[in-house]
């Protein structure tokens, strides 16, 4: 299973992850090419977040390999993984509630790769999300869910990532905000970022994605282009209710 087009920026091969005795990932293999959106869909508990957390270095796999730009990154601690240019917008946003919006953003730029350009990137983020500028000095805990999602995205971008993994970015948000989130993802894609998108909103994410994987019980059950999976009867039945 190689990348659909271009050179793979991220390669995951035969990944097994266990939590104690419980197996969360079973031989997961996937690839993302430079500049594409890769969607990972699947039901709750299928292992989507586990996959992201393993790539990010928060969990350590038992077997298998993760490669970023050809470098083996499996087993690196999370801060080293971030330092290579892999950013994450985690499930539940995970902002720092008692830190101000500005401080939250600064934390995203603590990486060596990003710290020198902190002030400049901060201006760019404020341009991208004017609402964050308005709330600059407010504790992040006082923001609405949508604003916190923008903050989580902005914080991730502060680290100058080349690959961004989104974990359920639309979960628990109002429909208009969800649109804004997807709009932002599209804009980041246009800027050339490689994106891995884990989303419960299967229809939208398959439409956005150039390639897509279906994860079931920790295994890749299907993969193809977004359009292929969108047209697949099994996908339509299981995830789109059609």
């Amino acid at each position: 299973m190689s990348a659909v087009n271009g050179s793979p920026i991220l390669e995951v091969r035969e990944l097994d992850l266990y939590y104690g005795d419980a197996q969360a990932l079973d031989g997961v293999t996937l690839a993302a090419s430079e500049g594409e959106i890769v969607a990972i869909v699947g039901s709750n508990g299928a292992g989507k977040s586990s996959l992201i957390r393993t790539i990010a270095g928060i969990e350590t796999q038992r077997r298998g390999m993760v490669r970023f730009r050809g470098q083996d990154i499996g087993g690196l601690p999370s801060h080293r993984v971030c330092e290579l240019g892999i950013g994450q917008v985690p499930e539940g946003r995970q902002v720092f509630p008692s830190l101000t919006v500005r401080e939250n953003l600064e934390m995203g730029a603590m990486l060596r790769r990003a710290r020198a350009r902190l002030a400049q990137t901060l201006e760019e983020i404020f341009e991208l999300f004017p609402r964050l500028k308005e709330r600059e000095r407010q504790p992040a805990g006082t923001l609405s869910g949508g604003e916190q999602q923008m903050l989580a995205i902005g914080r991730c971008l502060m680290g100058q990532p080349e690959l961004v993994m989104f974990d359920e970015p639309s979960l628990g948000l109002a429909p208009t905000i969800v649109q804004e989130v997807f709009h932002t993802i599209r804009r980041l894609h246009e800027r050339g970022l490689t994106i891995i998108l884990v989303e419960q909103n299967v229809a939208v994410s398959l439409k956005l994605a150039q390639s897509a994987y279906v994860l079931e019980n920790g295994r890749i059950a299907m993969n193809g282009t977004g359009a292929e999976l969108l047209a697949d009867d099994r996908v339509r039945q299981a995830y789109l209710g059609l």
Partner: protein
Amino acid sequence: MPLELVVNVAISGVLTGLVYGLMALGLSVIFGVVRVVNFAHGEMMTIAMYAVVVLFAALGLDPLLLVIPIAAAFFGFGYVLQAGLINPFITRPEHSQFLLLVAIGLIMVNALLVIFGPDARNVQVDYQLESFAIGPILFDKVRVIAAGAALATSAALFAFFKLTLTGKAIRACADNHLGALVVGLNVKHLYALTFGVGAACVAVAGCMMVLLVDVTPVLGPSYTLLAFVIVIVGGLGSMPGALLGGVLIGMSESLAGLFIEPSAKSMFSFGLLILVLLFRPQGLMGRRA
């Protein structure tokens, strides 16, 4: 009883209390970030006190100068202790963390007993007995110096957490551990820094405390308990709360000594603790959980 005496004693209690507060601040910072209670905290304080005794005797340097190398050494010690020994225990159950730190504390007390014996030691600076008066109120010079150093150290600590990126990153770790991992903060390193900062606080407090009291090895456990009481009274995790708690406990100790007798001082501290636990369990400046 003349009012001036009461005011004098209360003020000396407040000044001592600021040193207590700095000691407790170290405990509070470590607990607030690393979520480990440093049960060797008071023992570390007595080591700093002995360090002043030894270095003062050997070099004749003023404790106010000695505080800098001693705090730096404690910072390094705290960093190594956290990174090397405590870190593997962070994900373990609380009782095994407790045993680890109690063991470290016991080793410290007994090492001090072996080296220095059980007798009290102190330092005699040449301004030991000087005092100055503002109106009818009398101030001990050493106590004012000790309190000033404690306040300055606390202010520096507040500034560190509020203004520096590293300080903010430490607060971020305390705020959301997963969030800290996700943005690529090196949490283990920041935890070790935090322990180092907490150790440096207690070192400064110890350097000042030895100007005010004689030191014996067995003081350690009672200082640990005192720091714990102060942090609970002030509010777990609140930095201003630790200072306020220190001042209140310091004042209640000295007033108890005046009105009843000095040996009754702990009774008042613990009475205050019980009142706080009854009526404001989150502590005076703590946030409700």
